[in-house]
């Protein structure tokens, strides 16, 4: 018996097993077969037979057969009728059923009844179809992001440099930045240095003034007004003068004479456009190459640049220049972190 149950015929045994109609020997054999083929075990929850008759009806037994039926009768009429609407009858069975239908009007009614069991598809729309779709997400390549970031950083750097060397001295924030940048070059001794305005070089009819103000220049009167009361300055109380960095070692050496900035005459309480230097001041010697090359109204930008680069890159930056003398060579020296470049020119003849 055990050998008689195999993969091709187990279904009929299964149905009989579920119905409890197998003999004891068959039941044991089928349970052994199921144990050997667990994948064939059917979820019994799916086999709800509430509406089904207690015993397997002839239709289901017919369905389990692997051979074509050779005749149509009242017992297998349902099989043929359902098979017709399901289009699963063989050609031979179709012919048999057609012959039977022609001779039996009741069979035609039965076939019509089964045709009514076909569900007609109704239109049902899912309400949130768009929510189910996956939206396209465009990823920006990291190289593009890196490029834009680099470009922005370079622009920012140049912008910062531009502020440092341009005519931004009117901007208090920039002046404050200058003070911060130059604070490294300050010493306690330098703070106490009192500057003497070169009033001798200023013509009498020149109303421009020399000024070296402190950060709180609004509260403290300008130096020149205390030291040179003869200087004629109009509306000095209302005027806001630009702040000049107190000291700059590239501009003013400890022993070098002070050449004060000459401010243009202020009219209608307006800020001066740009500081200018007197001709005598322009003629004054300077130890700094950059200050000589920059023209009369240009400050030495080197400390600002080096400090800015140092701050941005968080790397120590140093830049030095030297003029060639009869005994020593001139040239320049730049150091950014561990990177150093230097150049020496020939001695002055």
């Amino acid at each position, binding site marked *: 018996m055990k050998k008689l149950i195999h993969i091709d015929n187990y279904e009929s045994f299964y149905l009989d097993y579920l119905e409890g109609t197998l003999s004891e020997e068959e039941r044991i054999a089928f349970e052994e077969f199921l144990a050997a083929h667990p994948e064939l075990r059917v979820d019994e929850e799916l086999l709800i037979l*509430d509406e089904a008759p207690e015993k397997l*009806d002839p239709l289901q037994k017919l369905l389990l057969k692997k051979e074509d039926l050779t005749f149509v009768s009242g017992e297998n009429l349902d099989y043929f009728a*359902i098979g017709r609407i399901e289009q699963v009858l063989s050609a031979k069975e179709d012919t048999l059923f057609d012959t039977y239908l022609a001779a039996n009007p009741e069979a035609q009614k039965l076939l019509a009844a089964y045709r*009514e*069991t076909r569900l*007609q*598809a*109704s239109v049902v729309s899912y309400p949130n*179809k768009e929510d*189910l779709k996956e939206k396209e997400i465009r990823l920006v390549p990291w190289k593009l992001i890196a490029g834009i970031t680099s470009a922005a950083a370079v622009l920012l750097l140049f912008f910062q440099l531009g502020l440092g060397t341009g005519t931004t001295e009117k901007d208090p924030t920039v002046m404050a930045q200058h003070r911060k940048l130059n604070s490294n070059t300050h010493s306690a001794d330098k703070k106490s240095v009192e500057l003497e305005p070169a009033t001798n070089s200023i013509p009498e009819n020149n109303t421009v003034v020399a000024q070296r103000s402190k950060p709180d220049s609004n509260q403290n009167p300008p130096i020149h007004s205390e030291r040179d009361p003869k200087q004629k300055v109009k509306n000095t109380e209302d005027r806001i003068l630009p702040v000049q960095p107190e000291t700059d070692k590239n501009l003013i050496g400890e022993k070098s004479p002070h050449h004060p900035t000459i401010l243009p005459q202020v009219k209608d309480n307006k800020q001066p456009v740009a500081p200018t230097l007197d001709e005598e001041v322009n003629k004054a010697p300077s130890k700094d190459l950059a200050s000589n090359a920059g023209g009369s109204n240009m400050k030495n930008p080197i400390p600002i640049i080096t400090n800015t680069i140092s701050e941005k890159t968080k790397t120590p930056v140093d830049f030095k220049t030297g003029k060639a003398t009869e005994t020593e060579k001139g040239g320049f020296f730049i150091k950014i972190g561990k990177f150093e470049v230097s150049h020496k020119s020939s001695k002055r003849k």
Partner: protein
Amino acid sequence: MTRKEYNEAVELYADNIYRFVVKHTQNRMLSEDIVQETFAKVWEKHESIEASKAKSYLFTTAYHQMVDTLKKEKRTTSFEGEDVRQDDPLSHLFDVQKTLQEAVNKLPEIQKTVILLRDYEGYNYNEIAEITALNESQVKVYIFRARQTLKNYLKSTELVA
């Protein structure tokens, strides 16, 4: 299956999946959740799914999702708590189809599943077998039994001869 093919599958089959599920559960909100979960699961594996098998894969996933959900919700084939009855399009259909839908709702779950896949989606026995993890003979048996039950129900209401 690419993103584009997946979105096309949504366009093509979302309504069919929803109809299949809502006819089963008779609960719109639950059905929407099942459909959403079905497509989410399919999207997770979309790279390993062939576009040509998308429909079959979707129905298979929806079927299993529905069975799991119904087990969790402890919803069985009953006429209780049906929230689609009031505004269901079937209410406007002919009496036979309306009664037939009632009869379908009375079928056991597996019979309902195979009959919905057969009539609404036009799947053959082999395809239904793949979706429901049955074999072809079992599908055939369930469909034949379902037809017989539906015919008897319609006859009992005297809507058919």
